[in-house]
């Protein structure tokens, strides 16, 4: 289980946790609180090849829809099926039970472009 310090962040508010060749991806605590009550998640397809920074999932709240952009390129190896029945997991546990999908990392260099928690916090502050 990742903690907020360990994971890396994107400017579009996703987090990435690396477990060997696999990256686990979700949205940040800040993002979920901005979204409000989440009612539906459209997950990426298993085996789908994702491109970095391209939209690959959608999170719906009652009155909004938010795109999730893949932080890394790679193939989807697993999606969090629990979100189908309980999308609110993203609200209650964004970094753990609310993870969204996993990709097999195809270009590890892309990881270098992500922010650590401190930088992400700064980024959020600046864009508030």
């Amino acid at each position: 289980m990742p903690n907020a310090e360990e994971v890396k962040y994107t400017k579009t508010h996703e987090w990435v946790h690396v477990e060997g060749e696999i990256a686990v991806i979700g949205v940040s605590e800040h993002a979920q609180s901005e979204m409000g009550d989440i009612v539906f998640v459209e997950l990426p397809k298993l085996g789908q090849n994702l491109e970095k920074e391209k939209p690959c999932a959608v999170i719906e709240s009652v009155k909004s829809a938010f795109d999730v952009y893949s932080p890394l390129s790679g193939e989807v190896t697993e999606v969090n099926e629990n979100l189908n029945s309980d999308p609110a997991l993203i609200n209650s546990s964004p970094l753990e039970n609310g993870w969204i999908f996993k990709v097999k990392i195809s270009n590890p260099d892309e990881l270098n472009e992500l922010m650590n928690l401190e930088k992400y916090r700064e980024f959020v502050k600046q864009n508030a």
Partner: protein
Amino acid sequence: MIENDSKLSIEKSASGRRALVFNARNKNGIKIPQHLLRDTEPLLPELSELEVIRHYTLLSHKNFSLDANFYPLGSCTMKYNPRINEIVSSLKNFEDLHPLSDDACAQGTLELLYHLEKALCEICAMDATTLTPAAGAHGEFTGAAIVKAYFENKGEKQRVQIVIPDSAHGTNPATSSMLGFETVEIKSNEKGQIDIETLKKALSERTAMLMLTIPNTLGIFEADIEKIVSIAHNSGVVVYMDGANMNALIGILKPGDMGIDLMHLNMHKTFSTPHGGGGPGAGAICVKKYLEPFLPVPRVIKEKGMFRTKSDCPLSIGKIKSFFGNTAVLIKSYAYILSHSNDSLSEISKNAIINANYLLKKLGKLYPPHNREYCMHECVLSCPEELLKNQVRTLDVAKRLLDFGLHAPTVYFPLIVKEALMIEPTETESKETLDAFIQAMQKIYEEGKYHPETLKKAPINLATKRMDETFAARNPDLRWESKKTCSSKV
């Protein structure tokens, strides 16, 4: 009675009870093979006629309406719906006319539609009109299809983009996608208007159309309109006007005079036909001469003193729905037009603008307006900082208004304004009604400042308290499944 309050018709059903009966004439039996026949009875309610009437009458009591309540929904033009229009549109010979009737049987309707088209051309300074779109968004779809066909015919297939300001109604970008166009969104300036430099950068030889809402969704007239239109035209771009806000312009300005190439009109907004709880509307498209060949069919024409429908138009985009448009709605709008003269038409927009500015002036002191200038037919305000500090949001203000018997304005739109309240009073409301609204808004401001919990709880006085929309979206219950499962839900 209260216990029965929200019971569904199916829960009031009793097996064997009947309302409408058709005396059967089935001496011929059923000449259809068994395997193609229905083998289960549909789960429809069984009620007496009185029970049906009472069911719906009681439901009607649980509803705000323009007839009973001030209804200042911005962008929706909730003006009075004259009852004479209902009477004339339901005359038997109008209602009983089949859309595939021979033109000879339809001379009255065709004459009416022909003259309505002419009147709209005159009101908008355009050259041709189609009345076939069923609503405003359907009109937008038609307009974008016309422009696509125009450029294809001209051999400029590379024009695949539509430029749309970020203040636009959601229907504009949605329309663009429906026809396979790319949407290029341009940012409005701090006044909510189009920035000329931004526009210039967005337009190119790939742009087909610029879609403008005039006045824009902030209720502001684009002062640079001449420049904007000429920049677009110089790039070979067609200028479309979303006419949803035509109630601000009718009688005082003709869009065609500003160089608009095509536009839609929402007959259920500007021309007073009832909104019916979400339709039916009608969405005429008016175009300049060069776009006329692309209008959808059927067209209504006059030939040797006879009115005819014409479908043989080689460049037409084709059909956008079955048969003709929403004729009954169009008849109502024509009656409305004829209740005005050449000279009195401008009284509509004039009073709509005065009413909106009166609200802006009185409410702007407490609820910060997006724009300090005078507005046209509607104004956009925001929830005050003092209230936001108390965790009171626009939604709470809206819900509290309901307690005063006033429908809420449009909220959280346009998207470019934080905590927006978009207020359109229309010309048919009296000063007294506006004053009552102002008073309620002032009281809500005070409450928000000193008793914010009242607003968070609102509505308080209605039979129904605040709805759990999250529950609805997470657990979609979209129909009854059986009498039993329903009753258990009460």
